[in-house]
């Protein structure tokens, strides 16, 4: 798995766009909307190498913060000058409102690409990049508000360990979110999807990234991955409550969500 991603890292984003015809951006946006993070949230994005989720998180929190500040300003019409000046001093440097995202990936190359992207797009504050294994996270217990793993969990050898680690590092009340390819229930769509996956994607892989085998592996790993209900049961086994899932594009992709309560 490591070698697959080593070779794939640089072309990762381009391949994502061409494979999913750009829809993966929509999927990630939907994930962010579902998370609905408020300023001050600490996010851990696992297997998030090139930073897609992290950047979306920062954008979302930034605009939420702006709205919050605007609301505060409206309130300020009734406060004394003293109180207003105090609050301006607090808010001045907090455009993100203390929110932070830690991007953790097992692969150095993916992290490198992610850091370059961040620099290129102008993301500087609130971001950290950590090398780590999802089955054994280098973090303390009860640290994060939200744990996300987008298109990463199918590459983990022991999914149950990754889920247990997720449970461990989340604060009480914290949320686990998993965005992953899943089982298509509609038979007609399923056949079209199979056709597309096995015929078109490896070809694209060869043409764009010069790597047929990696993308063949990708498609096969998607087929091997447990379907929605099974993954839900696994998440519950790790200790999460209020677990449910949302199918996107009738099952091509699913978002699973659970809470540590």
């Amino acid at each position, binding site marked *: 798995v490591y070698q697959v991603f080593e070779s794939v890292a640089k072309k990762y984003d381009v391949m994502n766009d061409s494979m999913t015809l750009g829809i993966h951006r929509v999927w990630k946006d939907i994930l962010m909307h579902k998370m609905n993070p*408020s300023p*001050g949230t600490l996010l851990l994005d696992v297997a998030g190498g090139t930073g897609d989720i992290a950047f979306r998180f920062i954008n979302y929190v930034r605009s939420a913060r702006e709205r919050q500040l605007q609301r505060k300003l409206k309130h300020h019409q009734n406060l004394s000058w003293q109180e207003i000046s105090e609050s301006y001093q607090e808010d001045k440097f907090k455009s993100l409102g203390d929110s932070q995202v830690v991007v953790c990936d097992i692969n150095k190359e993916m992290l490198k690409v992610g850091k370059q992207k961040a620099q290129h797009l102008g993301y500087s504050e609130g971001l950290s990049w950590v090398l780590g294994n999802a089955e054994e996270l280098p973090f303390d217990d009860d640290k*994060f508000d939200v744990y996300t793993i987008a298109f990463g969990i199918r590459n983990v050898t022991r999914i149950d360990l990754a889920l247990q680690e997720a449970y461990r590092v989340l604060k*009480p*009340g*914290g949320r686990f979110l998993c965005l992953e390819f899943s089982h298509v229930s509609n038979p007609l769509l399923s056949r079209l999807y199979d056709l597309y996956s096995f015929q078109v994607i490896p070809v694209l892989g060869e043409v764009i990234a010069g790597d047929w085998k990696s993308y063949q592996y990708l498609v096969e790993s998607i087929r091997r991955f447990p379907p929605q209900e099974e993954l*839900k049961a696994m998440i519950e086994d790790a200790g999460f*409550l209020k677990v449910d899932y949302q199918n996107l594009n009738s099952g091509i992709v699913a978002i699973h969500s659970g*809470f540590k*309560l």
Partner: protein
Amino acid sequence: VRCQLYPPQRALQASAVLRRVSDEQKEPLASSSQQQFDSQPTDHQPEKEPRGPHPSYTGQGGQESEDYESEEQLQHRILTAALEFVPQHGWTAEAIAEGAKTLGLSVAAAGMFHSDGSELILHFVSQCNTKLSELLEQEQKLVQLGKAQKKPTDQFLRDAVEARLRMLIPYIEKWPQALSILLLPHNIPSSLNLLTSMIDDIWQYAGDQSTDFNWYTRRAVLTGIYNTTELVMMQDSSPDFEETWRFLENRVADAMNMGNTANQVQSTGEAVVQGLVGAAVTVSDAETSPAVR
């Protein structure tokens, strides 16, 4: 099937209040909905994680106490804690997030609820209705013990509606927002349920024993009075809402007179239509001008 859990859970709050209230009285409307809701609690059992010897809720202790209560109880606690942040953040997921924080939970716990704040509002409404029931119950006890005079019907209705509307005062600035959210299609069943059960309550304590068409007439009329008074209150800037109470007095007097005419059915229809039209106009105004106050 699990994905469907949201609607039954929201309904569960309403049904809990319904069951508590209708336990004491037999109501033709409520009992049929009781049968629907009674099946839900059994679905809820598998949700409780069996941790520890005995599921007793021990209060603010530590993390462990959360394991001992059901998810629903925890959600109620979060929503109650969130109410104190409503004046600042409005009826939003942010208020719920702040509430969760005060309980020692992560702000992400607000993700358990709908992002438009519906559950928070429904929770608040059902809490107010419960408080009203308790108030009316106490008053009734005093009358039964001979420590207070039994009020004439119009006075009783006026006091009950005023008491219930006064509970909105701390949140009055953001209440128009709450009203418009309650009118969203996916909330209407729950909010309508809460409204009708509250009106039922008031009439029951007012001593309504009717089993004929009058039952519906009285409910419709009082619902109209309540809704229009609530809307007037949104736009009232007089000291201690005097104008609202005066409006209420007039409406109740009108209703009493209406009852004496022969055209009861027609008046019911008119009252309901007036109430709805008034509601629609004011809510659309409230939506277009969010910073009314």
